[in-house]
């Protein structure tokens, strides 16, 4: 399974490499590292510490072992276990997609915390003519994907848009 692991490191050189050591020694698959050090210091947790988010793919016992090893090494684990995006869906919305506040549509999906819009392309023929949007959404699992589809249906109904779902969707 995929998990995200938010950890706190000292804002010093070499800290990240030592934090990743338990990941490699336990042979987990490291998918990504989000190091917030250079984002204007907004995610600095104070006291010269920075927050790093790791996305791992490993079995539960392996993750438990990594957690144990990190704690032994003095690394503070802020949050663990939130699954990262496993499911992707591409949908089409047709209608006055832009005029009905496209930013609201995107943020309502993102704000669920279980999914986010990762790609969108628009075709806008003429003003007052319907716009078509192809939207790609990632969700953390199949159940969450169903919730997102329900939300998309609600948004489409509210904004009078035609929602075209993929054939594979349950």
């Amino acid at each position: 399974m995929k998990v995200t692991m938010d950890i706190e490191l000292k804002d010093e050189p070499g800290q990240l490499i030592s934090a990743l050591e338990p990941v490699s020694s336990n042979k987990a698959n490291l998918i990504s590292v989000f190091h917030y050090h250079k984002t204007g210091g907004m995610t600095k947790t104070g006291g010269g510490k920075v927050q790093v988010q790791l996305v791992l793919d490993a079995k539960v016992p392996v993750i438990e072992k990594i957690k144990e090893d990190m704690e032994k090494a003095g690394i503070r684990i802020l949050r663990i276990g939130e699954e990262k995006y496993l499911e992707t869906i591409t949908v089409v919305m047709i209608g006055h997609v832009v005029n009905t506040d496209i930013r609201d549509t995107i943020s309502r999906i993102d704000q669920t915390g279980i999914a986010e819009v990762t790609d969108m392309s628009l075709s806008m023929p003429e003003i007052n003519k319907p716009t078509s949007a192809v939207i790609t959404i990632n969700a953390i699992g199949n159940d969450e994907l169903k919730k997102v589809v329900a939300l998309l249906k609600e948004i489409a109904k509210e904004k009078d848009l035609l929602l075209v779902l993929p054939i594979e969707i349950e």
Partner: protein
Amino acid sequence: MKTVKASIIGFGSIGQGVARVLLMKKDYLEKEGIDIKVVAIADSKGAVIDENGLDLEKCLDMKAEKGTIAEKKMTGAEVIEQVDHDLVIEVSPTDVITGGAGLLNMQTAFEKGLDVVTSNKGPLTLKFKELNELADKNVCDFRYEATVGGAMPIINLTKEVMAGNEIASIKGIFNGTCNYILTRMLEEKSSYSEILTEAVDLGIAETDPTYDVEGIDAAGKIVILANTVFGMNKTINDVDRTGITQITYEALEICSKNGKTIKLIGEVKKNGSLTVSPRLVPIGHPLSVSGTLNVASIQTDLAGEITVTGRGAGSIETASAILSDIISIYKEY
């Protein structure tokens, strides 16, 4: 040789197609031990009857010349009631709102103990259970392969050939007119209304296309599949339905760039969900057939996924499904 006296109720394009197919396949039917003798034909203006068997070629000529075969002012139900025969080929116009004359024709046939083969969806989308119960009560055969997907064999496939499989869902393209419009919009870079005009000119769409483009026709077929394959008791009002009128060329084009296309898909699941709606289908997927073709994908527990495709409309194609139903009733094994 088994002689089957039949009536053809409705002599529009499908009724005439049936007459042509019976002429074309006369020798084949005889080899199968079946002699179909059409003793009555009814159209909207009246009927022609000959208890010794009508000359179908002459009937077709008369229809072409005069626009009707009527020699007597009789309704289809009156023909069924009064003429001595065994089989009613019910191919009158479909009306999914009231069931139309077809509903009365079928009820009359069963009450008289006659077998019915039909392409008429209307009565089945409204009174499926009642009609089947009436047929059973009167020990009549009732076959309706032609109601779903024309020449595409789906009902008999699921009921007979795939017997023993548990079916989880059936989804597919059940309306050739919508498929034609969506295919041509992308090919011609044209709007929905432009291609609709072309489809009407070619006779692929009706002058009033509502029935097709709003998904009503596809919904009727989904209802028949739900009731036949899954033993449900659904009507057309149980279908969550969206048509294709809001689909734009731009939407098809942007999907195409993403390796997908939009098709009007009907779907029935064993949990009771019935939908007809435009769906995104990857190009190259078994359901991404073009033009007027119909296609259905059946998800089963043993056989996996089975996909069938075929011409969903056309008088000869529909008549072929009617012919196969007639043979399956009367062939002596």
